[in-house]
């Protein structure tokens, strides 16, 4: 929420990259390393993955049932999708004026720039159907408990009264749920319709944007890789002014003890031929990737495929959440240094007006209700954003 402000500072610098800028970068590079081949290998002989990288196109994580039998789009489909998406997606589209949803949807395409539709119909390459494998019964139960709690917090709002898709699975009840005074079934990571304290905020609203695996989401992401003999640093710029880093341990030592948990896990890398393979474990129980928390295990493979291209595949495993491991692939394009000069400035927290604003707003609603000036706070929806306003035809 807050991130939007720093987003407006950071993104212009990094959003305008692509063609011309890359050319400038390559020119600069060739001054140091004239032969194209040497630019793919560091001066100490390792594959050179260095630079600022991003995915320049939009590819959904999962394949839409509409494209069930195709791994790639036809050119005509891509052109049509680009046309539909640029015409529709968050272009100042309004829902009914004066409704809560209209206020919540106050961000337009300026804030959520979209990229061209990618060549593939899903990032997921395994299973072959391009879909996240089924969840285990245990994980389904946990997800259902989370959903029930979220719906209970919404049950007295117009969102449920009007049968918005955000209330799917729930029903309207004018009596506020007693669950409003219960803590969530497990550590909260998403936006819920309760703002009793800071930890009721979604992780991105708290400047604690989710970590790995990192596919870019709505606002894109950038990663700078710097290498040294026997060492690799990756700095991520994600989620509107947030950022974090990984320093890949390359000397073969074992993972951190199980008692040490981190937001971005613990990365152990090795070279397999020209591919950097990173094993990531030790995630914090406060993280959540599609239901996976402390048992998440990633195996990433990074491979330079050309002067401006880097292939990234990640196998995602958590036997407590999915019935089988699955793999996604993303293609990154090298970006201009010159046009990304605000890199490394994850200053989200310093200007986070949205998060305390949600808390303060909730206190004011409670005060107004107590003084007979306003409705019961449980009837207000301060959680639902764009849900149901527009559907991305790519998803």
């Amino acid at each position: 929420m807050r991130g939007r402000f720093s987003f407006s500072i950071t993104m212009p610098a990094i959003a305008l990259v692509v063609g011309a800028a890359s050319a400038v970068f390559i020119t600069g590079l060739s001054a140091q390393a004239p032969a194209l081949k040497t630019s793919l290998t560091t001066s100490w002989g390792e594959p050179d993955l260095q630079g600022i990288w991003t995915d320049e196109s939009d590819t959904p994580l999962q394949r839409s049932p509409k494209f069930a039998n195709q791994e790639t789009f036809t050119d005509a489909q891509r052109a049509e999708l680009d046309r539909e998406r640029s015409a529709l997606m968050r272009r100042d589209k309004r829902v009914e004026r004066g409704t809560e949803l209209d206020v919540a949807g106050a961000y337009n395409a300026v804030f959520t720039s979209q990229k061209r539709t990618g060549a593939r119909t899903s990032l997921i390459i395994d299973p072959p159907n391009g879909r996240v494998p089924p969840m285990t019964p245990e994980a389904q139960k946990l997800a259902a408990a989370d959903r029930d709690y979220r719906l209970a917090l919404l049950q007295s709002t117009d969102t449920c009264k009007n049968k918005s898709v955000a209330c799917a699975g729930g029903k309207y009840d004018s009596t506020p749920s007693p669950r409003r005074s219960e803590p969530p079934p497990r550590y909260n990571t998403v936006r819920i319709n309760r703002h009793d304290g800071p930890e009721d905020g979604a992780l991105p609203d708290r400047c604690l944007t989710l970590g790995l695996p990192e596919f870019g989401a709505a606002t894109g992401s950038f990663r700078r890789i710097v290498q040294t003999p026997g060492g690799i640093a990756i700095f991520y710029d994600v989620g509107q002014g947030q950022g974090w880093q990984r320093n890949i341990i390359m000397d073969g030592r074992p993972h951190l003890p199980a008692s040490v948990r981190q937001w971005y896990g613990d990365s152990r890398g090795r070279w397999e031929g020209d591919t950097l393979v990173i094993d990531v474990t030790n995630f914090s129980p406060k993280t959540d990737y599609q239901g996976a928390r402390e048992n998440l295990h990633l195996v990433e493979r990074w491979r330079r495929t050309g002067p401006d291209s880097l292939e990234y595949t990640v196998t995602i495993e958590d036997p407590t959440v999915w019935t089988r491991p699955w793999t996604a692939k993303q293609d990154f394009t090298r970006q201009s240094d010159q046009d990304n000069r605000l890199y490394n400035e994850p200053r989200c927290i310093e200007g986070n007006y949205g998060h305390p604003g949600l808390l303060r707003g909730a206190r004011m609603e409670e005060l107004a209700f107590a003084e007979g000036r306003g409705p019961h706070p449980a009837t207000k929806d301060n959680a639902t954003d764009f849900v149901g306003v527009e559907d991305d035809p790519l998803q």
Partner: protein
Amino acid sequence: MRDRFAISMLTVAIAAASVGAVISASITHTSGQAPITRPATVGGKPNFTGIWQANNEANWDLQAHAARPAAVTQEGAYPYEYARVPAAPVLALGAAGAVPGSLGVVQGDGEIPYKPEALAKKKENADHWIDRDPELKCYLPGIPRAMYMPHPFQITQSTNKIHFAYSFSNSARTIHMDKVEGPPDDTWMGHSVGRWEGDMLVVDVTHFNDRAWFDRAGNHHSDALKLVERFTLKSPDVIWYDVTIEDPNVFTRPWRIAMPLYRRAEPNMQLLEFRCNEFAEEFMYGHLRKQPLVKRWEGETMTIDVTRKIPPGDAFYQWYSR
């Protein structure tokens, strides 16, 4: 593990002393892949790669100071400046809350050449340390402060970039050894452009904002701050770090700080996260809770009562109270 590490360190030292060329022995491991080692040089220049940390009191106060009972004190029983006692916020920490003494890191006469009005602001900052120090809010630490906070940082040295990853607040900076112009906005961490003067790494840092502090003593600067940092590898495990500080809005002349930075030589050392914005949430937003959470602490020897207040100048409070 320790022995192997010692051998590899020795090797690095020998390599540095002899050819300055790359590689030799290595830390061995079982996966059968190519051995990993840290060469003495990268691209023919001294290799600063590794995890480093200052081991001094500069983050408390850049200037020479005697040890004092606490970061926040109040007048004691005797009316002397040197007889103050810990104030309530830190009293419960006892001696662990005391500030260690230091000979300071400011070079020359040890004075920071403030303009009169800037000196007054420094004193005011110090008086309001808890309310004003960006460190307590987990804001980005700025440069040079990030270099001597009590948290490790990691240097990853390549040929055209040297990346600094700081444990504190996920902060980072990339030193551009190639030409990259400054950003179109001011920043906490500055814009770092490096060059080699022989074996010395010299970094010009510009494009700062006026919000970072130098230390917990309230030393401050404006957005006109310009730094020239000099990094010299004195031995494989010690960097001599020297910074010239210039800010005509705040100081009457350039001044310098200098200190050693030490390698974190533990064989299993790695940079762990210190994602402190989570830790600072109660501090920053506790007054916005529906029910106060941190209210009172009772130990065997004392009880601490906490009353949350709306911070003066709280923009949201004012906005909602219109």
